[in-house]
């Protein structure tokens, strides 16, 4: 079976590798698709819905990060309709928790904020929920602020798949979902945490941060984790590429 396949992205015929997702195929051909939960080298979950695309012959939008590219597939990655749905997904993320950007450590270095700007969000059409959420400061070096979490689960995946510590998980269901440390204990009491900080670096917002930073000061170093994650990917066929 040939390893190269042909797909049409936004009308143009491009080559992709068998086994690549639409997201990866688009990226390999220099086409940008937004994505908050996707992280190079980690498995994919399709949680954020920012990477949705139109696939010809399918009457609903598909997340490109979890949909395999198939030979002969025709994909639309940019359109007014997609922009509208992506903006809706973003606005719902803003309305779900308490994103007070002005006082956030990650202000101006935040992927959520950057996408809002890029996709033209000027206000949130949905009523904000203002849930009461915890800030866990019990870890000596790091802090998790659930108010700023978008539930992308990058932290969960990097801890499981790269560090192998399995500290993070998701507790609760639906609107009550939240990131939880081990069996829902304080981070400072985690028995498996190696204090490596990978979860902090991959977090797209200010939900996970190092202590000792004021507003706007936390800049994440994703390149290092991405390198570790991709090295591991080539050696361990169980994970993502």
């Amino acid at each position, binding site marked *: 079976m040939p390893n190269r396949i042909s797909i049409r992205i936004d009308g143009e015929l491009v080559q992709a590798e068998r086994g690549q997702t639409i997201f990866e195929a688009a990226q390999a051909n220099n086409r940008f698709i937004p994505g908050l939960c996707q992280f190079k080298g980690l498995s994919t979950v399709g949680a954020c819905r920012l990477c949705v695309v139109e696939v010809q012959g399918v009457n609903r939008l598909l997340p490109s990060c979890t949909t395999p590219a198939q030979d002969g597939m025709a994909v639309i990655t940019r359109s007014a309709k997609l922009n509208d749905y992506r903006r809706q997904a973003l606005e719902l993320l*803003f309305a779900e928790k*308490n*994103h*007070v*950007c*002005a*006082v956030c450590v990650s*202000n101006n270095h*935040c992927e*959520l*904020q950057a996408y*809002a*700007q890029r996709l*033209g*969000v*000027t*206000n*949130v059409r949905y*009523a*904000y929920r*203002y*849930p*009461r*959420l915890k800030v866990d400061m019990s870890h000596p070096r790091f802090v998790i602020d659930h108010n700023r979490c978008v539930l992308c689960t990058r932290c969960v995946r990097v801890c499981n798949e790269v560090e192998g510590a399995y500290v993070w998980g998701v507790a609760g269901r639906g609107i009550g979902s939240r990131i939880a440390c081990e069996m829902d204990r304080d981070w400072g009491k985690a028995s498996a945490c190696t204090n490596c900080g990978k979860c902090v670096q991959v977090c797209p917002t200010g939900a996970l941060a190092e202590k000792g930073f004021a507003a706007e000061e936390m800049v994440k170093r994703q390149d290092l984790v991405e390198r570790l994650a991709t090295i591991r990917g080539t050696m361990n066929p169980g994970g993502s590429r």
Partner: protein
Amino acid sequence: MTKAPKARLATAWLDGCSGCHMSLLDVDELLLTLADRVTIVFGPLVDAQHFPESVDVALIEGAVSSQDDLRLAQTVRENSKFVIALGDCAVTSNVPSMRNSIAPTRLLERVYIAGADTQPGVPLENVPKLLRAAIPLHEVIKVDLHVPGCPPSAAAIAHVLTELLDGRKPDLSAVAKFG
């Protein structure tokens, strides 16, 4: 040559820190041009006690947090052609919203009784009643333009006012960021 009649500009200060008004004053030499083209008819920058009728452009800073905020926002809307939510508090409710997960009664008791060194007691007279939550402006009135920023840059405010005075709809993508 007869000059075009001046546009009537109003500003309002709801639950915010006045930083957006400071940013408005920070437009530097544009203030001279503005002085020729607009009359400020209401707001913290002028003396008017009552919101006037037929205002062309109204800039509202701050979240809607109390009964007074709500009434003022409604009055501004009723009497203004174009209403702008100025800054993050008006656009997203921002920092004022950090009280929203606590019921107002409990919040006031915590601050004015548990947190008081002397004379504990919740003030009840001459202060507006708090709403259950501090909310963005567009949740209570129709907003014609959102200008995010904490505060919006002077350049963003200058751009918005100049474009509106020239009869164009401002495009904020280059001068403002959300959140």
